[in-house]
């Protein structure tokens, strides 16, 4: 009952964001938080549930983003361009997965890192196609079902709809038999094989699904910025997406969203007041990991439970005193 109430309150709050904030700058910030939250959610499918650490997630932003822009410039309509972009980027994920999953653990991280850097390198070098260092502009935001999403609040709602659909799918994924097989393969791969599970295929499918949702986020990113350059798909971007999931709490559904919100806000809002916002982000990260090694969401949940138990005990003690 409380969960449904919390869900309804969350939904109302998300819907009311443009009214509450009013300021266009901050409404755009909210859209950005949602886009990064989707990136973080997608990487968390691998990281949190599958135990696979990827440092190449920005590669999907690169492939989906450039494909979307180039297809639109080539004259295709926005929907075709978006579908093409997501399909191409997901196919790339399928191929990247084949390469990365050959190596476990550290090798996996290094291969994803290398693949992400290759995408970055191509974007940087292929001047004729991507505009190189100068980047490339996306002609215009689409008009989904005839809705105009050029202004900040309507774009926010558009992003929110896509985000909620993605969140719903990823939530189902995390609670599904497949999700259970994935966490099993994370904790005891050898045992899972002995129980008849194809651990490699479970991981590969997860890799592709994560790539798909990252591609969706990549297209949203392009719609938001109407511009893409190699700086947006650098290693730092991949690392930030990874940090969002870890900061908020990998292996929880809400953790990556919280992490994305904190990092995006510090980067964009706090940076206008504090020059060394990078240092601040570093301090936040260190403090959270020191006191809540599993991230903010699991850490806060645990602290809340402890506090409630403490309160219950305090209530119980005076009642039992007269009996003694």
């Amino acid at each position: 009952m409380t969960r449904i109430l919390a869900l309804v309150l969350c939904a109302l709050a998300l819907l009311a964001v443009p009214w509450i904030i009013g300021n266009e700058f901050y409404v755009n910030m909210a859209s950005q938080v949602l886009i990064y939250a989707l990136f973080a959610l997608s990487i968390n499918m691998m990281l949190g549930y599958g135990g696979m650490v990827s440092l190449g997630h920005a590669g999907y932003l690169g492939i989906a983003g450039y494909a979307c822009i180039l297809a639109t410039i080539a004259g295709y309509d926005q929907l075709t361009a978006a579908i093409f972009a997501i399909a191409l980027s997901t196919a790339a994920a399928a191929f990247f997965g084949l390469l990365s999953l050959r190596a476990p653990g550290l090798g996996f991280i290094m291969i994803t890192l290398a693949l992400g850097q290759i995408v970055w390198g191509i974007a940087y070098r292929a001047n004729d196609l991507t505009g190189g260092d100068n980047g490339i502009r996306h002609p215009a935001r689409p008009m989904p079902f005839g809705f105009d999403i050029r202004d900040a609040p309507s774009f926010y709602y558009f992003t929110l709809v896509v985000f909620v659909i993605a969140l719903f799918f990823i939530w189902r994924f995390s609670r599904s038999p497949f999700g259970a097989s994935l966490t099993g393969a994370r904790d005891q791969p050898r045992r899972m094989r002995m129980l008849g599970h194809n651990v490699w295929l479970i991981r590969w499918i997860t890799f592709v699904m994560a790539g798909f949702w990252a591609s969706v986020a990549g297209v949203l990113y392009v719609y938001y910025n109407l511009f893409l350059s190699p700086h947006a798909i650098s290693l730092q971007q991949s690392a930030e997406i990874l940090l969002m999931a870890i900061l908020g709490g990998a292996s929880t559904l809400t953790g990556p969203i919280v992490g994305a919100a904190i990092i995006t806000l510090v980067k964009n809002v706090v940076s206008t007041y504090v020059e060394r916002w990078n240092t601040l982000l570093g301090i936040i990260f260190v403090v959270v990991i020191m006191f809540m090694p599993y991230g903010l969401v699991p850490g806060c949940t645990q602290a809340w439970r402890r506090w409630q138990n403490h309160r219950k005990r305090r209530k119980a003690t005076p009642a039992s005193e007269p009996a003694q």
Partner: protein
Amino acid sequence: MTTAALEVAHLSKRFGGLPATKDVSLSVMPGERRLIIGPNGAGKTTLFNLITGDLTADAGSVRLFGQELMGMPTQQRVHLGLARTYQILTLFPRERLAHNVVLSLLGLDRRRWNPWSILTANRDLYANAHASLERVGLADAAERIVAETSYGERRRLELAMALAQKPKLLLLDEPLAGLSQAERQAVRALLDAIPRDVTIVMIEHDMDTALAFAERITVLHYGEVIVEGTRAEVVADPRTREVYLGD
């Protein structure tokens, strides 16, 4: 002649220069209870790992009811009716007991690929898991976390997970290791209750239980089969004494 449930022929495995399994051949008939004994380092668990595919053999063949298993990945062998328990407990410690058994059931169920349905809504899986837990006397513990159970309960959970898959060939790697006398009795009764359509190969050091349980015994020493025969034959064989008692 009936096909053997398990037919191992000329199986060899080396770790660097050390031969762990040397030209091992053995044949286990359907429904048989086979015991494998031998001193520490005799290659008993290695033999199990070669049969399941956890390790790749250098040479030889392993057949399950006539079907060649060599070159087949572990999970495929499991789908053919192979199950095992581990000497060192290999469970999902942060999950509930029921969830452990459900993972075992999912291993042979097409639903394991479903990323959309809610796992806990698959009532039949949980009912089946509870039945398996009841069989090993853990019905009351189904909703407990593995990390909060006793060692004896975990041993029985290992067994429940293997039995839940209704295997044709069951490999038991020291199912009594680390159990108290009372727990041993309970697990022994459990093993005795396994129907004869399951063929069992067991590694065990508890000789009282093992000898009472098995019909035929294979003695391994330095990776080689040195004696094989019925209970009486193996116990009477001087080579068995040599291995266990020294010259």
